């Protein structure tokens, strides 16, 4: 497949090309970079939706439902579902496809599972790459599903234009979890498994917190709280309506541009960071220099502070000027 033009094929929406370039991104394979550079001008058209929440809250089932709704409006959809890798074995069980089988023969839907792999450069970067591939491939909507636990996942959600946080009754202290950064990233709250006991109470609690937050912070967008029973497809139209309303708000207020500008800023800095780190790490590990340094630090001949200075001055001579 050496004569295969990946860039042209991605722009035509070829699943084969999109899938392979995503693999290269995951593997940090050099072949990814030139492709990404060439498809970049063709990105920025897809609307990016994030769906996050604790394990098993119904994120995949909701993703499936929203995808169904979008397909009924003849919009095409790309899905990136991120699941954790085991830190012990490096393996991963990626089970999100199970909930989306009704779309598996639909050429208007492309679904990719990704493992977190403990990326040194940050998971967000790879997710962003995958989103761009789908975007350049002509998908109208890209949905990212992640388990909302750590900082990595919060970072991933910054890639999204609209972020939905999924909560379910019976998972313990919601207010506690709402303190831990969730309120900052949620544009929409989804109370899923509304068929379960305690759903009304959870709804009221979340609504109360949202109102309280709105009165303190004077937010221009007050996150709506949407009730769903994803397994029965109930409430998914309300959810799509809320997503559309948020999009309209972002577009009309100029917030969408601002959001995207911030994202490019963040992303560019992160990419520079990642590339510099990669180069320097490669050099330091090549002649076991890092091990020597560690030994010398252990023996108190050096310390991490002067090692940093030394390394930086060695490879970034310009920094001496400051």
């Amino acid at each position, binding site marked *: *497949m050496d004569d295969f033009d990946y860039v042209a094929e991605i722009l035509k929406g070829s*699943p*084969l090309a*999109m*899938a*392979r370039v*995503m*693999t290269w991104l*995951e*593997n*940090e*394979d*050099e072949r990814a970079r030139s492709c990404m550079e060439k498809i970049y001008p063709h990105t920025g058209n897809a609307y990016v939706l994030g769906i996050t929440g604790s394990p098993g809250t119904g994120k995949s089932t909701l993703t499936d439902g929203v995808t169904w709704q979008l397909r009924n409006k003849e919009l095409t959809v790309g899905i990136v579902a991120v699941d954790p*890798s*085991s830190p012990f*074995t*490096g*393996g*991963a*069980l*990626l*089970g999100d*496809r*199970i909930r989306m*089988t009704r779309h*598996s*023969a639909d050429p208007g839907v*492309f*679904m*990719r*599972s990704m*493992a977190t*792999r403990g*990326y040194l450069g940050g998971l967000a970067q790879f997710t962003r790459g995958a989103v761009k591939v789908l975007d350049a491939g002509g998908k109208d909507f890209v949905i990212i599903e992640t388990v909302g636990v750590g900082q990595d996942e919060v970072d991933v959600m910054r890639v999204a234009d609209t972020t939905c946080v999924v909560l379910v009754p019976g998972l313990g202290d919601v207010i506690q979890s709402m303190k831990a950064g969730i309120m900052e990233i949620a544009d929409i709250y989804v109370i899923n498994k509304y068929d379960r006991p305690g759903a009304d109470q959870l709804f009221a609690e979340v609504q109360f917190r949202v109102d309280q937050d709105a009165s303190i912070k004077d937010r221009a967008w007050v996150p709506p709280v949407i009730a769903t029973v994803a397994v029965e497809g109930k409430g998914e139209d309300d959810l799509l309506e809320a997503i559309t309303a948020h999009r309209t708000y972002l577009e009309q207020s100029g917030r969408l541009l601002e959001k995207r500008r911030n994202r490019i800023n963040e992303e560019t800095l992160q990419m520079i960071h990642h590339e510099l780190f990669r180069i320097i790490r490669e050099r330091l590990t090549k002649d076991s220099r890092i091990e020597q340094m560690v030994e010398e630090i252990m023996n108190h001949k050096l310390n991490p502070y002067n090692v940093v200075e030394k390394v930086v001055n060695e490879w970034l001579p310009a920094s001496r000027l400051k």
Partner: protein
Amino acid sequence: MAEKKIKIIVAKPGLDGHDRGAKLLSRIFAEAGMEVVYTGLRQTPEMIVEAALQEDADVVGLSSLSGVHNYFFPKVVELLKAKKLSNVLVVGGGIIPLEDIPTLKKAGIAEIFGPGTPTDTIVGFIKANVKSK
């Protein structure tokens, strides 16, 4: 370049509703360091191949208990070829009569693992036979 992982689709074609075996195998592959996409029950060959395509899988593992292997397994190989995915390693398992094995292998299934095959053997075979991409 980051370390490469073997990505495997575990699929259970056919109509029977038991997937304990397929789920167990998925866990075994994950324990062995692979990235396992489990696709669920009642998969058609078309759905399995679409998953392999989108996930850029290295391996497709098919499990069958209901006697559909003679149709399903070769069909998956054929559809993979049609999608320019002939590099994907296809292995099968489940309850498969010995006399069917030669035909399946001729149709492009790399190996068939009967019930009770030590999981190390399966994992070892996959690791030795995946192709780079």
